[in-house]
């Protein structure tokens, strides 16, 4: 029996990205197949405006999936929490 819940990611934006996008996060509908981090970032960038600017190729953006640092090829699945943020500057 197919899972009746919608197949979504929880996307989280932090620091400069949160301010630039004007939101701390959103639910993101997943395509039928498993998707990779880079296809999510491509889709967000395609929104244009602050999205195109902040996620432009060459801008340093870090991605964590379920609180673990991820690479462009990391697979994301329904229910995952995917966070996008700039390089860290703590300490």
């Amino acid at each position, binding site marked *: 029996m197919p899972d009746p819940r919608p197949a979504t990611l929880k996307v989280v934006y932090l620091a400069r990205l949160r301010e630039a996008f004007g939101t701390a996060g959103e639910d993101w509908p997943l395509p039928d197949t498993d998707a990779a981090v880079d296809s999510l970032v491509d889709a967000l960038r395609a929104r244009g405006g602050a999205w195109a600017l902040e996620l432009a190729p060459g801008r340093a953006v870090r991605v964590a999936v379920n*609180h673990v640092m991820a690479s462009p090829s990391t697979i994301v699945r329904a229910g995952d929490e995917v*966070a996008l943020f700039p390089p*860290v500057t*703590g*300490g």
Partner: protein
Amino acid sequence: MGTSVRVQSALFEIGVEIDRMRAGDARIGAIATFIGTVRDVNDAAQVSALELEHYPGMTEQSLSDIADDAARRWDILGVSIVHRVGKLLPADPIVMVVVTSAHRREAFAACEFVMDYLKTRAPFWKKESTPAGDRWVEAHASDDDAAARW
């Protein structure tokens, strides 16, 4: 090996944090400590305040992983990391790392390792208030170089 990590907005008491790690343990011969504080100048601008943001859940996990990593690499007795978030003013303490061990070489190395890893891997972001307005602090390549040493 005791590891302890905390993320908090409240000021920490430096002497209390160190005494908590010592706790009368006479196996300890060396305690290396690092405290990072807010400077009133950064990248050629006056800084009147700092806002520190973190990623709840991942930040604590990241600090725990760094502390455990230090404990695997060196023969040490304890590691504690306390990092503040929220609004801070010049001279305020931001972060404190305490490492206890039998001998000083291991304590120094593990303490410096924790700071280098924290600077490049722990999800914290600083926003500075300057005369030209607020700005997000940019990451430094020198911090990546420092972390790559280990």
